[in-house]
């Protein structure tokens, strides 16, 4: 489990467990990418984030650190640095190259890495080392019963609840991992309550959430 030793105060076990589980899942084969490829996606994501935060007179992207398909490198970098500018045409082009389910799995791995890294940076601790890839082949399983939810990729329909909770439907294992992170870091058992008995009040948490969304220029 992640220990966050450099942070002088306790971190709830639930956060540590969910992040450790997500990290371990990155290292194993998914449905469309091997463990090696998934860890490489995480490395690309990390490199893109690092480059974004470095003040440089030349915004030219550095060469890729991997042998992933070019579309996968492009997608990972865009998700890291300017996700708010993505559009359906771009997504259609990428999914034509990779397949929609492989794209969604790539989104999930990129998001796991982002969440783990941003949390560490927020605490002021070192980034976790990338996990060691595990041997295994992708199972090529595509979930059945998905439909058009008005998004760029198929999702579970019908649906009750926040739309974002079904966004990774094409990669059900990743969706479970992502909701594990959401459940430990934000939407706990009291999500439906407007008054929280937590260290921060709900309005304080929602201000932080809203500010993060606005800084990312995220409409959702």
């Amino acid at each position, binding site marked *: 489990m992640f220990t966050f030793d450099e942070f002088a105060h306790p971190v709830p076990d639930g956060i540590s467990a969910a992040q450790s589980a997500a990290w371990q899942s990155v290292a194993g084969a998914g449905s469309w990418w091997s463990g090696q490829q998934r860890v490489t996606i995480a490395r690309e994501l990390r490199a893109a984030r690092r480059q974004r935060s470095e003040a440089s007179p030349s915004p030219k992207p550095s060469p890729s650190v991997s042998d992933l398909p070019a579309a996968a490198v492009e997608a990972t970098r865009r998700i890291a640095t300017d996700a708010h500018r993505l559009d359906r045409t771009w997504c259609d082009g990428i999914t034509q190259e990779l397949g929609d389910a492989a794209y969604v799995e790539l989104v999930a791995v990129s998001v796991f890495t982002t969440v783990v890294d941003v949390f560490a940076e927020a605490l002021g601790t070192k980034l976790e080392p990338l996990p060691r890839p595990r041997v295994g082949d992708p199972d090529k399983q595509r979930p059945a019963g998905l439909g058009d939810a008005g998004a760029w990729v198929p999702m579970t329909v019908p649906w009750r609840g926040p739309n974002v909770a079904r966004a990774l439907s094409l990669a059900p294992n990743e969706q479970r991992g992502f909701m594990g992170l959401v459940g430990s*870091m934000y939407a706990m058992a009291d999500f439906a309550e407007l008054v929280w008995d937590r260290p921060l009040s709900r309005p304080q948490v929602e*201000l932080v959430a809203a500010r993060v969304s606005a800084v990312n220029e995220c409409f959702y």
Partner: protein
Amino acid sequence: MLLRASSEALGEEADLGGAVGRGAGGVLHGDLLASFAELATRGGDNLPDVRAALIAAVGPEAFVDAAATVGIFNGLVRVADATGIPLDKGTLDASADFRSTLGLNEYAGARSSDLGAAEPGERPRNVEGLFGF
């Protein structure tokens, strides 16, 4: 939107401009929380100072809560933006009155939602009403 609803549930008035860097959101230590959220997302040389100030102001437990929120929302926004998921209908309706004022409709991601379908009316008073549980 949940900022406004949860503030109202406490009998307080939210300052929604805090979400876009105008004001402190109408919440205790809102200025520090918003600065921390921004710096931890963008990065910046003064992040350590703001982090220390926030821990001193709210305590370490609440600080971890804030850091966790920053972390997970940097993921949530990417899930939404990379999949082009439209805004939930309840949220679309309930946020119609301030999206324009705050400039949110100008964000590129607004193209994924049918803004014309918004039916502003009486706002849901609970989370279930917003998300259609």
